[in-house]
């Protein structure tokens, strides 16, 4: 998998590049719009990450030009502006997703993977499974090592999200936003409380604890190493 990152801010570019390489992607980097457009049109990428404010050629024009040249590489737009209009404009110009700075790397990674999945046409699975834990999306049955587990709807969607992102860290904000469709910063630890409930049902009776807390970052569904 090869990803093009067009970003002029050195700090941001360096952490995106390092993070993507750590996750096994090969990454190319362009520091301005013109160079980025050249690279996008010359080579074939599985996804591109494009900053809106770029020297020489701005991100939106770049994407527009790519689409004109029939380049359908999925693009994630990075922007410091979070106004709804900017988001709409970005998507109209041919962007596939829109992420506002500052963002967490795990969020970017999850979105890149979702875009690549969508683009390569992987069909939606009817069930998810990881390390003996299985979740049927149609019947909404959850089993661990063949023991049925009863979950509340909110717990079910939380587990589904964790399993879809198995072995990837998801932040509290990502859970609030993607699982419950709430975009706010709680002062009480509602995510933690919910994770606790889920742990009680999934991990308590088993020796291998799958749901792990990564301090400061979030949670991950992963076999302990």
């Amino acid at each position: 998998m090869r990803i093009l990152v067009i970003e002029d801010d050195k700090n941001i570019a360096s952490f995106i590049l390092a993070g993507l390489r750590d996750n096994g992607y090969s990454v190319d980097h362009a520091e301005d719009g013109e160079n980025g457009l050249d690279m996008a049109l010359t080579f074939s990428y599985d996804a591109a990450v494009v900053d809106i404010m770029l020297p020489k050629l701005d991100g939106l024009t770049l994407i527009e030009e790519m689409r004109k040249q029939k380049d359908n590489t999925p693009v994630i737009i990075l922007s410091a502006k979070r106004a709804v209009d900017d988001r709409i404009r970005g998507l109209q110009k041919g962007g596939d997703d829109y992420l506002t700075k500052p963002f967490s790397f795990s969020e970017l990674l999850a979105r890149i993977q979702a875009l690549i999945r969508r683009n390569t046409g992987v069909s939606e699975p009817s069930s998810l499974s990881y390390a003996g834990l299985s979740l049927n999306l149609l019947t909404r049955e959850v089993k661990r090592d063949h023991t049925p587990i009863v979950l509340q709807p909110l717990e079910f969607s939380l587990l589904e999200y964790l399993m879809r992102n198995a072995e990837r860290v998801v932040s509290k904000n990502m859970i609030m936003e993607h699982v419950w469709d709430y975009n706010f910063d709680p002062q009480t630890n509602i995510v933690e409380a919910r994770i606790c409930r889920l742990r009680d049902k999934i991990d308590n009776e088993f020796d291998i604890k799958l749901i792990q807390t990564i301090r400061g970052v979030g949670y991950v569904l992963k076999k302990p190493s």
Partner: protein
Amino acid sequence: MSLKNRLEIKSTLALRLTIWYAGFFSFFILLLFFIFYVAMTSAFLKTMDKALLSEVHECSSVLSLNGMEALKETVRIESEAEGIDTMFYKILSLGGEIIDSSDTALWPQTESKKRIIRQMSIQTQPVFETLLDRHSPYKTRIVYARIGPDTILQVGKKMRDEAGFVDIFKSVFGFSTGLIIFIASFVGWFMSKRALEGVREITKTTRLIGAGNFEKRVQLKNRGDEIEELAITFNEMVERISTLIKEMREMGDNIAHDLKSPVTGIRGMAEITLNSGQSVDDYRKMAGKTIEECDRIVNMVNTMLYISETEAGVYEHAYKELDLSSVLKSAVLLFEPIAEDRNIEIALDVPETLMIIGEKQMLQRMVANIIDNSLKYSFEGGQIAITGQKMGDAIVLIFKDTGMGIAEEHLPHIFKRFYRCDKSRSLPGTGLGLSLVYAIVHAHEGDITVKNHQAGGIILTITFPLKKRHRNI
């Protein structure tokens, strides 16, 4: 150039008003004079013409009764009686030859007009003309009339009466025009000065406020006029602006404070880890702490932006009809585990549906923020009661908790940004939660009040008017 100098120049409003006033006033007076003049002169002319015609009649009857010689005699007597410089007579044949005339030595310009003589041979109507005499101050009115089969009488008379009137008129006119313009200017100046006095006062105050003296207000004189209204509006505006400036200053201080503490935390943790960190675990802990603190800052900034956007109506185009009951139900569900953990009961009492025009994300945030806040300040074993219902033309939401309540002195301020009841700012939170709730309620044209109840805890009431929004769909 200073404002004062600019006002000294001729283009002040007072001067312009004065000129307009004096100009209009004088114009209409002059128009009146003119109409009066025209009416008077035409009246004089009519009288004159009548007099001339009666002369013609007299001569005509003398000619037909007593013959030409008697006419000649009459004419001579008449002109001498009137004065030979006042009146003259000429008896002409149809061909234009002078048969006889009075003494015309003093009438140098009275030769009979051939055009008129020719006209007289066709028509019997008398013809009038007016002559200006270069040597005399008076105009002459002349009539030509046929008084016999081949006799034309030409009679002229100096218009002494009219000239007398014009003379008087001219002097009266000259004098009164000057007087009128003077009075009009004076009255205009006085009136505009008086009218603009209030404006001057406002300008003076504005200059002081512009120089940074935000406590100044325009002195009201209770006259109830438009200027007074302007002054009141102006004072209200200054009041609002100075409150805003004060709030912004406070907010700046608060932002600085709220940024300083997480940054200090990050910096301190990094320093300690660098100095004495031994294991990877120490560094992992530092990285985790750094992310937590950064998230706090980002969340704070995002919430601030969200409040500004809400106030600016950025999300207004996304308003649609939605069910407030289901928003409340799902929010209660969201907070269930934490409420259970702390043995707090959340009781929700809403009808099956509660339709409202609004933006879902905003209303979700509003409800979540309120419940979150109540949970934060509730004691173990407490209760949060939420009711929602339609009352007349409004939807009323009531959030009642059994928490620690809010001290009376804080109540008026709790919707202000960054306002925190605990001055040490030691409890978690940004002090933005209720400001956001307030902004969202107002974006939906609703109203929010908060008060303590006797049993302890607060009652928060939100009212959304239904009519206004629903009219728009």
